[in-house]
């Protein structure tokens, strides 16, 4: 194992001396890349240029090593045995929960529920809260920019509970104005579901203002932090969100583990989502009483290695600093937008300035279908996303059939942008000139 990994054999030992920070106190992605073994792989015989971070991110050694160490030395079934390994697994799982609690600044560990991913977190809220507390003629308000996983569960709830689903639309720059918010939130609004950052346009929504306004009107708010948290962080206490959800795999962690944060009083009143082992107190033939929070919502043997990996990812991000990561992404976005704006065959979607936006750029190349483009740049080792990005209502609203999307993270470089633009040029020329 290499030198970087060796530092992390104990999953929770903090990183001594951050890699990847230059003398100017900024991220040096060329150094950071060395922490990510995937960049040693060749794709189509070329260096990998990974621009699909909004879909999922790559893992640094510390995360890989923490999961490996857990499986090698500490694996047991948490909460279920008196033996060493069960105790150890319980300890690590609890520590991971505490790490998450501190990272998003929740008041209590009871407010951190581990799930499989953002989608499951939202489904938990929809089935446990929505199906029980949303009433006929209540309104559920979404933004048109939501990911399918923050739309479909609400369609189900609206159908079953005879509630109404309403949408807030974006202005021509892809922003959500407070005027639109105020127009749509009424005293019938029971729940507002909103993404912190659009996974297609990169726009950051004014969630604090929206939450305050919704609360004044008596509505609860669910924030989808899948795209926001990895880049912007969150303070759920200050934000005063009622529900906040995210996935580990978009913030350098493993797949198969996500989080639901919810206000303790809400979780107390919500019935369990799934039932079985680990979430009970007493069980008789006909009845059961439920375990206290957070176990009440975690039926069955949990994903301990996932939680351990997420905790290691949080350590890694904290060591670098989310503020530095965001600044780095914005520098790259500025660089990319400046170049892309000057290319006549590109159509860009979303805001062209840097205000309230993150490192996601959606675009189309004239005369090249997004899927052909994705295949062509893949031949150059470039990973980007093409299609509807699980946000068909947004693409319909924008009247775009499909688009290409690049999304940055801490390890991306200006070289990545330059190589992408060269590859786009090659694709364009092949489609237009046949060579």
């Amino acid at each position: 194992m290499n030198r970087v990994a060796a530092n992390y054999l104990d999953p929770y030992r903090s990183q001594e001396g951050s890699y990847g920070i230059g003398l100017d106190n900024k991220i040096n992605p060329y150094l950071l890349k060395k922490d990510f073994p995937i960049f040693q792989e060749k794709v189509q015989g070329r260096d990998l240029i990974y621009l699909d971070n909004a879909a999922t991110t790559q893992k640094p050694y510390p995360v890989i090593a923490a999961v490996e160490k857990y499986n090698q030395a500490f694996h047991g079934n948490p909460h279920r045995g008196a033996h060493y390994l069960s105790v150890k697994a319980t300890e690590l799982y609890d520590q991971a929960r505490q790490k998450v609690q501190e990272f998003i600044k929740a008041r209590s560990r009871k407010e951190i529920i581990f799930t499989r991913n953002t989608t499951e977190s939202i489904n938990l809220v929809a089935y446990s809260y929505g199906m029980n507390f949303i009433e006929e003629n209540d309104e559920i308000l979404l933004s048109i920019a939501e990911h399918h996983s923050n739309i479909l569960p609400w369609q189900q709830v609206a159908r079953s509970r005879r509630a109404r689903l309403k949408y807030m639309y974006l202005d021509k720059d892809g922003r959500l104005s407070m005027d639109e918010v105020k127009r749509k939130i009424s005293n019938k609004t029971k729940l507002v579901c909103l993404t912190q950052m659009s996974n297609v346009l990169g726009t950051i929504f004014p969630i604090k203002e929206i939450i305050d306004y919704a609360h004044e009107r008596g509505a609860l708010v669910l924030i989808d932090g899948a795209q926001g948290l990895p880049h912007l962080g969150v303070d759920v206490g200050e934000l005063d969100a009622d529900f906040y959800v995210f996935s580990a795999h978009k913030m350098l962690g493993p797949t198969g583990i996500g989080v639901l944060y919810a206000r303790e009083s809400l979780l107390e009143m919500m019935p369990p989502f799934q039932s079985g082992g680990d979430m009970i107190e007493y069980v008789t033939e006909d009845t059961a009483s439920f375990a206290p929070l957070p176990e009440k919502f975690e039926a069955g043997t949990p994903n301990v290695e996932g939680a351990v990996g997420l905790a290691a990812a949080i350590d890694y991000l904290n060591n670098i600093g989310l503020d530095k990561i965001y600044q780095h992404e914005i520098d790259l976005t500025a660089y990319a937008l400046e170049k892309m704006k000057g290319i006549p065959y590109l159509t860009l979607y979303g805001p062209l300035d840097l205000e309230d936006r993150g490192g996601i750029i959606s675009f189309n190349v004239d005369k090249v279908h997004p899927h052909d483009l994705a295949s062509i740049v893949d031949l150059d080792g470039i990973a980007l996303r093409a299609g509807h990005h699980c946000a068909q209502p947004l693409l319909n609203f924008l009247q775009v059939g499909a688009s290409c999307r690049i999304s940055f993270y801490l390890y991306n470089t200006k070289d990545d942008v330059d190589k992408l633009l060269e590859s786009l040029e090659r694709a364009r020329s092949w489609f237009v000139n046949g060579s």
Partner: protein
Amino acid sequence: MDLNQIYTELIMEHSYNGKNRRVLEEKDREERGHNPNCGDDITLQIKFTGGRISDLAYTGSGCAISQASTSIMIDLIKGKEKEEALELLEIFLEMIKGTELTEEELEMLGDAVVLKNISYMPARVKCAVLAWHTLKGLLGS
């Protein structure tokens, strides 16, 4: 793999030229095919004369692979008996699955063999087979 092994001249030509892209004045049936992921969306229209496919055309939109595959298929299938068309469909689908075809089978597919390399691109297989599956739907029952 290289660009010119996938986006061959023939594929580019078929994806651009619109000779099979039209609406039939007289049709017996039509069928729509759709790839939700790619957004490829085509409608095939067919006209039979006896047991023979006397006319076949498409409308719709999508990526170059799906459009070219549709157009090449129409060139191949038009004028064929229904049974013969079904046999060609199966051979084509086998090729895209990666099955080695005999010389004779390759010959039967004609220009459609240019799509063979798609069998090495799992992400694009759906694009290549869309029209062929849609036609299967049209010919079935």
